[in-house]
């Protein structure tokens, strides 16, 4: 690893280079872009959750003012356009595979959730399109909606291809060894938890602008995507059957993703299709209501947990039975989230000799459920860390000490878990100790007593999490059912004057890649950061890449950049050796200069760049001119960030309001490139976790109507709901990438919900409260207090 010496190198909190455009209103998001001749698309959506479509009459809409086209599922079917695909499937316990029903771009014969697109109206203005859509007459034969996913197997069948509404029934681990451990245990701790359904709510609603060029029969799509190359691949290869070269996908500035902008949605595809049909650019932008109804939601699990302990309170077995809701259609990564990204994390930071898990993925008449910040790992961490805290209380141990005696010891790495993963490195006690110190854990009881004098209930709760990110070794992905590679690409172009253009396959939608990636290149080449430009988000400019999700950008994308820079340095040494009339082996590269070892003969990096492009004195017989290198980096393992978060809360028994009064986060992300950006990621993740634990809940009624479809009804965390956060780090550098980095994007959202709920339960523990479901709303907390008091009175 490079020493941290330069002001803008690795390890420095450089202020972000991308800020200025956003701060001055010059960001360029998809909806900011307009094309000459552009028309607007509006989707008519089902207002019932489950129904057969008897007929659709679009005649009146066709002739409404400003309308240039009205299309339904039969138009899509006539053109044989495919629908979105599932990118990852898993085997079922009975030997069958995941059931994959088709997902048509516009409903064909049936609607399956409120928001399912039935028709699209394209008109000169959005207002005209909306008005015309009101003239479309859809005759539905309503069917019984399936909303309760736990009992979805008893409901009306949603897809012909999915018997009992079960997409898959998957298992992992050793069932008999685990059951044996449970049977022979000194104590078995049982807990049932629900991981509440969330709406990702990136602040920029999804948008698409598609344009068809009839001269070269090609399309350009601007879209709100976390991975433009994957979007292009899916649209070209699976929907339109056109060569990739005929479709350019640009994801310009994208206003947050959190998983919800990974997938190809039907609206993007319909805009692409309609742009050719109509011969004009077609634009669609979701309003927030549509975003609530149609963006993929997250979480929505119930988990039954059994944790087996021996007489020394050491864990000897863990069994988790999970049912999860995947919604009306299988989204791209909906299958992998509750299985591979969930089941494999169940060992947490603990040495557990036997683990078994079973996961059933159910179809319901609700919108699709897929990855949301953390994606499977928050669900695993929540059930495990809630159970750890419950177990500690049941056996009468301090929760920290109970965790400590069960941690994987630091000399046990690499550690093979019982659920497939091998952790390369970690050291868990230091972040536990540091987080406890940061929050002054040892004096907590004094604070509890002081709060009690004020009539308030004060509580403390922790969560020691692990996650697997930096997706991922492609061979492992393939073996586990993934249908994509998970490498990342980079192209590093040295320009003749020595400035650098870095083209990355990953995508930034708030993470600050333009800064972080430039720091890596500047550090490795010993040049000023201002000389490095990072380009992303355009399939015509960047090499094929997998995009950004799963905290993979630095570990995978950054490693690809690092490798490409290494190739640049290697070639530059050859050029330097020629110019300096020395052997290549004698050339040292340091601080941006190529020096003949032991002499004062040197060439600056800029001189090498110029020589490569003006090769008048150059070893052309053995070396190509130019200085540009590509790298495709396929990681050899996942990376495993870990940490401990501790929450402290105060509850007002008069209102049930939970106030988060303090928060300590100590994380091990390996080496940090830009600590300021990392800290911002931690803050944002914690806020989303606090939102899940206290405020947010996507709620469908029994008819399948989403009751929380606006910011009036879905409680987003606001500034006055949250505290300031204490953030600290430990560091065990990743052993298998050059930068020694892990990933930080999701950690906060993974760690925080159980810490917070544990704190709420701890606060109410004097009242005998032992459980609390998410979100712990004032009403729920107040009721728990009232009920405990009435029990006490009896």
């Amino acid at each position: 690893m490079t020493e941290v010496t330069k002001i803008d190198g690795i390890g420095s909190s450089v202020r972000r280079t991308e800020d200025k455009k956003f701060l001055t209103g010059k960001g360029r998001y998809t909806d900011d872009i307009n094309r000459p001749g552009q028309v607007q698309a509006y989707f008519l959506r089902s207002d019932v959750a489950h129904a057969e479509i008897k007929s659709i009459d679009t005649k009146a809409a066709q002739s409404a003012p400003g309308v240039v086209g009205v299309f339904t599922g039969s138009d899509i079917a006539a053109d044989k356009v495919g629908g979105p695909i599932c990118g990852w499937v898993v085997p079922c316990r009975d030997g069958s595979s995941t059931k994959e029903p088709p997902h048509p771009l516009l409903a064909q014969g049936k609607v399956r959730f409120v928001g399912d697109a039935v028709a699209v109206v394209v008109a000169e203005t959005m207002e005209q399109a909306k008005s015309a859509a009101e003239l479309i007459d859809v005759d539905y034969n309503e069917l019984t909606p399936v909303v309760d996913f736990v009992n979805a197997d008893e409901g009306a069948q949603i897809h012909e291809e999915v018997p009992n509404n079960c997409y898959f029934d998957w298992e992992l681990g050793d069932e008999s060894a685990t059951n044996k451990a449970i049977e022979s245990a000194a104590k078995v701790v049982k807990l049932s938890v629900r991981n509440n359904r969330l709406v990702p709510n990136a602040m920029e609603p999804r948008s698409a602008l598609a344009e068809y060029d009839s001269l070269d029969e090609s399309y350009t799509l601007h879209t709100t995507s976390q991975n433009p190359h994957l979007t292009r691949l899916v649209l070209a290869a699976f929907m339109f059957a056109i060569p990739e070269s005929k479709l350019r996908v640009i994801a310009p500035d994208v206003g947050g993703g959190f998983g919800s902008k990974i997938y190809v949605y039907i609206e993007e595809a319909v805009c692409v299709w309609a742009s050719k049909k109509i011969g004009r650019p077609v634009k669609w932008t979701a309003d927030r209501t549509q975003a609530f109804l149609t963006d993929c939601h997250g979480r929505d699990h119930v988990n039954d947990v059994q944790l087996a302990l021996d007489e020394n309170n050491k864990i000897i077995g863990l069994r988790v039975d999970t049912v999860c809701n995947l919604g009306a259609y299988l989204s791209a990564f909906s299958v992998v989230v509750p299985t591979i990204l969930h089941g494999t994390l169940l060992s947490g930071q603990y040495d557990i000799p036997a683990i078994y898990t079973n996961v059933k993925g159910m179809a319901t008449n609700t919108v699709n459920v897929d990855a949301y910040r953390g994606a499977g790992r928050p669900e695993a961490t929540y059930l495990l860390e809630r159970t750890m805290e419950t177990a500690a209380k049941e056996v009468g141990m301090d929760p920290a000490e109970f965790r400590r005696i069960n941690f994987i010891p630091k000399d046990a790495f690499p550690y093979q878990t019982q659920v497939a993963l091998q952790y390369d490195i970690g050291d868990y006690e230091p972040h536990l100790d540091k987080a406890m110190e940061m929050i002054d854990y040892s004096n907590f009881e004094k604070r509890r007593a002081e709060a009690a004098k004020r009539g308030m209930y004060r509580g403390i709760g922790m969560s020691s999490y692990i996650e697997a990110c930096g997706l991922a070794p492609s061979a492992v992905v393939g073996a586990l059912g993934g249908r994509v590679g998970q490498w990342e690409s980079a192209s590093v172009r040295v320009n003749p004057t020595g400035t650098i253009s870095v083209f990355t396959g990953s995508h930034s939608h708030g993470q600050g890649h333009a800064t972080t990636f430039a720091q890596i290149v500047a550090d490795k080449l010993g040049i000023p950061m201002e000389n490095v430009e990072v380009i992303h988000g355009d399939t015509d400019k960047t090499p094929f890449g997998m995009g950004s999700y799963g905290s993979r950008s630095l570990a995978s994308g950054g490693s690809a950049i690092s490798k490409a820079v290494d190739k640049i340095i290697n070639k530059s040494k050859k050029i330097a050796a020629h110019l300096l009339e020395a052997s290549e082996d004698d050339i040292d590269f340091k601080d941006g200069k190529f020096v003949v070892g032991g002499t004062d003969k040197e060439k600056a990096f800029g001189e090498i760049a110029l020589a490569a492009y003006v090769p008048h004195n150059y070893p052309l017989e053995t070396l190509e001119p130019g200085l540009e290198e590509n790298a495709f980096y396929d990681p050899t393992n996942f990376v495993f960030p870990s940490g401990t978060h501790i929450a402290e809360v105060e509850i007002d028994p008069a209102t049930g309001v939970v106030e988060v009064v303090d928060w300590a986060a100590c994380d091990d992300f390996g080496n940090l490139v830009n600590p300021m950006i990392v800290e911002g990621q931690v803050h944002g993740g914690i806020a989303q976790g606090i939102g899940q634990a206290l405020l947010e809940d996507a709620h469908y009624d029994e008819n399948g109507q989403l009751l929380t479809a606006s910011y009036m009804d879905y409680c987003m965390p606001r500034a006055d709901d949250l505290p300031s956060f204490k953030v600290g780090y430990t560091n065990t550098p990743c052993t298998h990438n050059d930068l020694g980095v892990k990933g930080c994007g999701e950690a906060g959202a993974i760690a925080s919900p159980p810490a917070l709920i544990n704190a709420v339960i701890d606060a109410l523990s004097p009242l005998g409260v032992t459980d609390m479901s998410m979100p712990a709303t004032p009403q729920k907390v107040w009721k728990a207090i009232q009920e405990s008091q009435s029990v006490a009175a009896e």
Partner: protein
Amino acid sequence: MGEISLKLNGKLETKDVADNTLLIDFIREHVGLTGTHVGCDTSQCGACVIHLDGVSVKACTMLAKQAEGSEIVTIEGLADGDELHPMQQAFHENHGLQCGFCTPGMVMSAVEMVTKNKNISEDEIRKGLEGNICRCTGYHNIVQSVKAGAAKMGG
């Protein structure tokens, strides 16, 4: 349809627009200034906050007609040429933005809040930002930014 004239970032803008045109659409679609954003349809998120005659308002919730003859400042009009407004500079220095989508509204709200209350406390900042939703930052660094911006603005 009707003609609407107003001053936008110091420049007189006169457009013939439909009577039901919202102020945000006048700014984004008719004038073409896209720095002000739309993040919701219920006046909750605050991505569309602008200054109308010195007061911060949500441009998604009023008709352009209601702004006839007023002086409007949007995020594009805040900096002095290449020199960022102290609040913009404070957001940059304190990492008060990530994806940037809520940022224009945040900055406009913050500027008005601090203009009215130079010695603003952390608690007042948090309460004052209740009408602006950010999904990226967890608000920690936004609060730090507003504090620093207040100091720069002479608090």
